[in-house]
């Protein structure tokens, strides 16, 4: 690999675009000829196109053989997104954990006193209403959504959008009583009880968390458990 190739890979990763490097494993090649940097749309002309597309689909890197040659495909998929409503104390800890764990975190809170860069160094913070911010973020089944404000005016629009988008994890902070009222509101909005049951509440794995940081750990663990559900079942 040369520096230009490394920089090209990093540029695509930074833009959250999928990228694969394909390394020819036999000896005697010039260094620049050993490695190819590929985006999914550039794969079709390669002799090992099927294997690379499969790697893009599954996120699994590995060795393939094509035309009697061996190649190592290393695939980098965009990070899983974590969208949080509420620029609160728990979110500050959760944003830090998300960064370490490689999740792409965005925090939404229309209350400008909460949603400041100073409180969330290094994390994307949008001081907007969820109705305005969420369409731009493009929630999907590779997104985790977490509602942390306790305020239905801010949390509910986010939960509605997350349920509609089929986010792989949806969690909402609040007591059982708060959540019961929330469930009633969502049912009135036309969601089924199965839909509403997808929301993790009380939020987080039950580790007896007390401090905001501990609660953030329990939420992050629950998100990772949902993200790796298939692997856990194996």
């Amino acid at each position, binding site marked *: 690999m040369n*520096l230009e190739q490394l920089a090209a890979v990093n540029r695509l*990763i930074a833009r959250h675009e999928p990228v694969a490097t394909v390394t020819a*494993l036999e000896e005697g090649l010039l*260094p620049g000829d050993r490695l190819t940097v590929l985006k999914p749309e550039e794969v079709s002309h390669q002799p090992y196109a099927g294997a690379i597309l499969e790697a893009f689909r599954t996120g699994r890197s*590995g060795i393939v053989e094509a035309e009697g040659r061996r190649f190592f495909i290393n695939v*980098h998929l965009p990070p899983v997104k974590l969208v949080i409503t509420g620029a609160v104390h728990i979110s500050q800890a959760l944003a830090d954990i998300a960064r*370490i764990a490689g999740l792409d975190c965005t925090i939404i809170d229309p209350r400008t006193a909460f949603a400041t860069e100073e409180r969330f160094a290094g994390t994307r913070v949008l001081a907007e209403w969820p109705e305005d911010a969420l369409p731009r973020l493009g929630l999907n089944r590779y997104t985790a959504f977490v509602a942390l404000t306790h305020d239905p005016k801010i949390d509910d629009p986010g939960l509605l959008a997350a349920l509609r988008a089929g986010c792989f994890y949806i969690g909402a902070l609040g007591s059982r009583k708060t959540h019961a009222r929330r469930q009633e509101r969502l049912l009135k909005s036309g969601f089924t009880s199965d839909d509403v049951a997808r929301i993790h509440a009380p939020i987080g794995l039950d580790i007896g968390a007390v401090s905001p940081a501990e609660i953030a750990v329990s939420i992050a663990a629950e998100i990772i458990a949902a993200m790796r559900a298939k692997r856990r079942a194996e």
Partner: protein
Amino acid sequence: MSTNDAELLVKAEEWARAGKKIAIATVIETWGSAPRPVGSHLVIDAEGNFLGSVSGGCVEGAVVAEAAEVIASGEPRLLEFGVADETAWRVGLSCGGKIAVRVEPVT
């Protein structure tokens, strides 16, 4: 801090742009129980500083030593590590698995 593999490659680019000679080690194949999945990286400079991991700490020392020679020669190397007690003089994996690690220079 660089704890995930995407951040490691950014760090590798920073090191290279700062004029450091570096190598990137990558897990390219695993058999049985392996501590780190295929695609995991270890970034090493000529002074033996390193970031990331290919085995969670079991064989990094050996990879760093090989990386010094890869950086000096400019030629990639393929390393294989199996269980620790297989050959008494060599480091290995206590988990019983086997991994193949490719170490390549950034030129």
